[in-house]
């Protein structure tokens, strides 16, 4: 056992070899176990990105809570967004086991130096987007997180198991919204198709660039932080989703989509990685708005957090006296 905060490059080769042997045996790494500094950093990077995504992801859907068209939908949307807040909190707590606290990570997010899922930089323009996000975005997240539930780092893997249960519920709820719209009035059906048209390609981009171009993939796979490559996960998502769209009479906006009868895979057209790069480098449709909303909430809430700290200190002083 050693410090989780050792300086970079200090890893003892014998310890690294023992660590990698543990990984190879399929053992789970716990926070108190020795781990290479690179492993710890990769985890902090992935987990904090994940936590930020949950929290920033509250904004596009939060945009429709006040306009949900029925009481049942209003309640279920609010509950969903609340779940995402819970996911964020839970994963931030997971990063604390790696010696990084939430305040530090939030500062990085607000400074614009931390990443979060690029999908949340797209705007939610109609009620149908609540269906599309639940179905596609939570759906894609499930494919990714089902894999991460086997991650070699115990706290992350356990968080994924718990979170995935709720994401499954969100996905069903989103799909049900889409199915209801698709079976509704012509205007509702058009709304559903438009939402699918807008969210389809960004959803495929959620899995990240092809493994050949993904700088972190090899290391993450070797340490079993990830168990599968981006392309394989993306293909799994497409294979799951294409029949679901067909079942409710919606059309996937990809003229090149074809079923490969031998592999059973739905082959899809080229992804516009230029768009992806634009969005992750800060020029997506809503990057500025999302960060501005988080910054405003943080700044507006500063006096509340300060007061809570001050009151707790007063209380402690009073009970000590």
């Amino acid at each position, binding site marked *: 056992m050693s410090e989780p905060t050792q300086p970079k490059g200090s890893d003892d080769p014998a310890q690294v070899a023992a660590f990698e042997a543990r990984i190879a045996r399929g053992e789970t790494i716990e926070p108190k176990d020795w781990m290479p500094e690179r492993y710890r950093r990769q985890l902090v990077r992935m987990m904090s990105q994940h936590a930020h995504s949950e929290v920033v992801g*509250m904004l596009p859907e939060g945009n429709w809570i006040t306009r949900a068209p029925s009481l*049942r939908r209003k309640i279920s949307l609010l509950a969903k967004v*609340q779940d995402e807040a819970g996911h964020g909190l839970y994963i931030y707590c997971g990063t604390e086991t790696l010696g990084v606290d939430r305040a530090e990570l939030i500062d990085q997010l607000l400074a614009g130096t931390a990443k979060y899922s690029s999908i949340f930089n797209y705007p939610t323009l109609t009620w149908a987007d609540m269906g599309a996000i639940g179905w596609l975005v939570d759906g894609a997240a499930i494919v990714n997180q089902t894999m991460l539930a086997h991650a070699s780092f115990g706290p992350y893997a356990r968080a994924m198991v718990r979170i995935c249960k709720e994401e499954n519920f969100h996905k069903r709820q989103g799909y049900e919204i889409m199915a209801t719209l698709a079976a509704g009035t012509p205007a509702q059906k058009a709304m559903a198709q438009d939402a699918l048209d807008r969210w389809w390609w960004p959803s495929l981009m959620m899995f990240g660039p092809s493994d050949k171009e993904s700088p972190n993939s090899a290391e993450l796979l070797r340490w079993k932080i990830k168990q599968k490559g981006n392309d394989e996960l993306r293909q799994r998502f497409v294979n799951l989703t294409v029949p679901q769209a067909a079942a409710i009479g919606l059309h996937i906006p990809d003229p090149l989509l074809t079923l490969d009868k031998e592999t059973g895979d739905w082959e899809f057209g080229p992804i516009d990685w230029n768009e992806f790069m634009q969005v992750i480098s800060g020029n997506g449709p809503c990057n500025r708005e999302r960060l501005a909303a988080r910054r405003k909430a943080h700044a*507006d*809430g500063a006096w*509340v957090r300060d*007061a*809570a700290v001050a*009151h707790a200190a007063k209380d402690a002083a009073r009970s000590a006296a």
Partner: protein
Amino acid sequence: MLFNYLLRLGDDRLVLGHRLSEWCGHGPILEEDIAAANIALDLLGQASMFLKYAGEVEGKGRDADALAYWRDETQFRNVQLVELPNGDYGFTILRQFLVSAWAYHHLGALAASADETLAGMAAKALKETRYHLRHSAEWVVRLGDGTDESHGRMQRALDELWPWTGELSWQHEVDAALRSEGIVPDLAALRGPFEAMAKEQFARATLVLPDGPMRMTGGRLGRHTEHLGHMLAEMQIVARSHPGAQW
């Protein structure tokens, strides 16, 4: 008569639940995003319950959604206190405390209603209200007795909000008729315990109750502030843009 009373119960909760839900994603700390959403969810659930029953009592085939989405502001029967814009988090949490403290006494009395359905609903809502009351009361103390800034903000919020509370115990012929049948309590009798609870909490929060007059209001008669119309315009826009649609 009971229809009108159920609208009051439902609308107070619908409007306040909606206001609280506006915080979702914008709270001062993630834990409070979750807590505020919890309270909003309870209130919206209670609103659905009371409005559904209102529709049944009315007997014209209106369900909770028809009442929530297809009435205009003059047909809403909530108190004006709940429709005021959120202000800062202190204003929101202080209003929540006032409404929860009132609801705690009101629902407690309604749980003994001669109308068994109403009594059951009140008992269920009371359970949730206890949590809302505890949570908001803790924050009132934390913020009132926190920093100089938070104390100042909370005192200003209390000065602003307190005069709106007169409407909580306002009664007219609807109350008299239902009271005579043992369906609803005398709200005037609840005023004392409500104020005692509020004062005790404000003393702990080092806040001083303003002693000015209560405001003239009319929410129970459908006369609202200028804020409610805007809120409903947003809330109802999608539903009203698609008459007859299912969601």
